[in-house]
């Protein structure tokens, strides 16, 4: 794979086991926000990548089939978290319950936390921005957000999130002023964090379903803002 050599690592192969595909207009992979460099492919990842390429070459599957399938699954699960956030935006009582008794409220809402891990919900405001990372591995609320994106698991994100969180957020398009305190939250094996992003303005009277379309995955990790209504 000459592509690997040219670009130096995992994040430049364009192939994402968790379906996070980033390609430029020319179809070539390009840099990802939050990620500056990373280690090369491991043995298993190389093997999986080789098999994936072979299956495409032999015509068994199409170029984007795997990515599309994974993305479809991820989207379905991401909407679990988005629904909870949209409900919290619309219903103050639900919001309070979700913040105070997160695990019970998540289960009541019909979602099952993985490995019986506890769930903590944190709310972003004009004063405080919570941003979640797992510096030791990649703890992530999969049942609420789907499989973690590769950048979340990268060494680059896991180190930069704690040493320069604002720089990382700015790569995701979120510029915060000094008036907002950043709280980097380093996750552990027993806990999963869900972030409630700030509700975009001019969404008065929106239904839960409409609001949920604004709740993107990155905003629930805390690296980005919710989607602005005029861009949906």
């Amino acid at each position, binding site marked *: 794979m000459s592509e690997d050599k040219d670009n130096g690592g995992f994040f430049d192969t364009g192939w994402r086991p968790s379906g996070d595909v980033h390609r430029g207009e020319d179809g070539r992979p390009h840099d990802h926000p939050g990620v500056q460099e990373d280690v090369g492919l491991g043995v298993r990842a190389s093997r999986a990548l080789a098999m994936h390429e072979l299956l495409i070459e032999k015509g068994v599957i199409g170029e984007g089939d795997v990515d599309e399938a994974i993305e479809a699954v991820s989207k379905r699960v991401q909407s679990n978290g988005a629904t909870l956030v949209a409900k919290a935006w619309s219903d103050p009582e639900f919001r309070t319950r979700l913040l105070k008794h997160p695990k019970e409220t998540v289960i009541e809402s019909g979602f099952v936390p993985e490995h019986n891990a*506890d769930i*903590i919900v944190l709310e972003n405001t004009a004063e405080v921005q*919570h941003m979640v990372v797992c*510096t*030791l591995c990649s703890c992530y609320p999969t049942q609420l957000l789907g499989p973690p994106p590769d950048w979340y698991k990268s060494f680059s994100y896991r180190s930069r999130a*704690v*040493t*320069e*969180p*604002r*720089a990382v957020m700015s790569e995701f398009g979120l510029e915060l002023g*000094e008036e907002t*305190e*950043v*709280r*980097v*939250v*380093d996750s*552990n*094996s*027993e*806990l999963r964090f869900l972030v409630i992003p700030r509700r975009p303005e001019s969404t008065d009277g929106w239904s839960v379903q409409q609001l949920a379309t604004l709740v993107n995955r990155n905003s629930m990790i805390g690296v980005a803002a919710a989607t602005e209504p005029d861009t949906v």
Partner: protein
Amino acid sequence: MGLPIVSTAATPGLAFSPGDHVFVKDMTPPNHHRTPWYIKGRRGVVLEFIGMYVNSETRAHGDSGLPELPMYRVEFEQTHLWTDYAESPSDKLWIDLYEHWLEQAE
């Protein structure tokens, strides 16, 4: 289990309260543990007791991880963790730690 583990003798009541200044113990036990290096030996403030949790340090070595241990959310100043921290002086780091990793700071 094979590997020696950090002492996790049951504590009657809780050792720390919100607002307590604590040091994270600067130790590297040979067993699996989930205290990242960058907070070892650092001073922080206990925000709250967040509950009793299975001990992932013993569970990682085939044990049940019981009894559950107290865990606390501890806040650190980013500027204390990273001497060259160039972002905002108000920025914080939150991490949840088992009681046996903490000791009271004066």
